[in-house]
């Protein structure tokens, strides 16, 4: 292993190696030894950058949140409908997982054996959708533009659909959905969702 790496590049290489291992084996399934072996450095060097495995895990999450989906562009357009914003947000979110499937794997591990901080981190990503859906559907109901529905159930339904698409497309590609690209699949599901909430003509 090259010793010429700068401290910053070294830190980055540790995060990269740890990310892949955490994604495969979960937080508890990875030892510091495995990480240092993968990077090709001594434990002392790792501890110079990260005090503990917990701190390293947080640094990996932190890096993902730097690439945090920005929905701003999607929502500033004029006269944009509920459906268009929802589709725009979903595209951004789905692409972030397509580009970083490790994040989805870490989320799955965290669901089973995660600590509170990591569970909150992942929950918070979904909250953008549930907040958006609950708030807007409540408003549309008040304006009598849609039939009365339970908005929390609607938000949950949406989260469930999108999560399942990600699992089937990004983790273990399902054969029966092979012919449908992820963007088409998402568009079809959004269509179904919009039909379900029954906009009044």
């Amino acid at each position, binding site marked *: 292993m090259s010793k010429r790496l700068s401290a910053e590049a070294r830190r980055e290489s540790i995060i990269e190696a740890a990310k892949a291992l955490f994604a495969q084996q979960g937080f508890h399934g990875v030892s510091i030894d495995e990480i240092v072996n993968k990077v090709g450095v001594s434990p002392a060097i790792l501890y110079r950058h990260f005090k503990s495995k917990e701190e390293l895990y947080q640094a990996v999450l932190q890096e993902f949140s730097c690439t*945090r989906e920005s*929905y*701003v*562009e*999607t*929502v500033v357009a004029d006269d944009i409908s509920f459906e268009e*914003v929802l589709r725009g947000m979903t595209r951004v979110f789905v692409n972030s997982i397509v580009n970083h499937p490790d994040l989805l794997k870490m989320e799955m591990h965290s669901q089973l054996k995660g600590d509170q901080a990591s569970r909150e981190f992942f929950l918070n990503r979904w909250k*953008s959708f549930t907040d*958006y859906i609950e708030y807007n559907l409540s408003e549309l109901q008040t304006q009598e533009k849609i039939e009365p529905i339970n908005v929390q159930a609607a938000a949950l339904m949406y989260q469930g659909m999108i999560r399942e698409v990600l699992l089937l497309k990004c983790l273990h590609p399902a054969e029966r959905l092979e012919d449908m690209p992820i963007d088409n699949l998402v568009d079809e599901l959004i269509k179904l969702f919009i039909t379900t909430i029954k906009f009044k003509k």
Partner: protein
Amino acid sequence: MSFDAELDAKGLNCPLPILRAKKAIAELSSGQVLKIVATDPGSVKDFEAFCKQTGNELMSSSEAGGAFEFMIKKS
């Protein structure tokens, strides 16, 4: 700093604070100021991007006790 309207976006995740701010600003006249309070740490970057894209002026952006406060002047 004085303001003409206030938006409480505490507890909400992006993009909802942005969307609600957009609606609130639409009801203001040019030069009027909207105060927004949010708790999503991502809102700091989001409101910067929002103002850049909409041409409204981000007069201030501050943090106190886990809440973020923004003052936006309508262009």
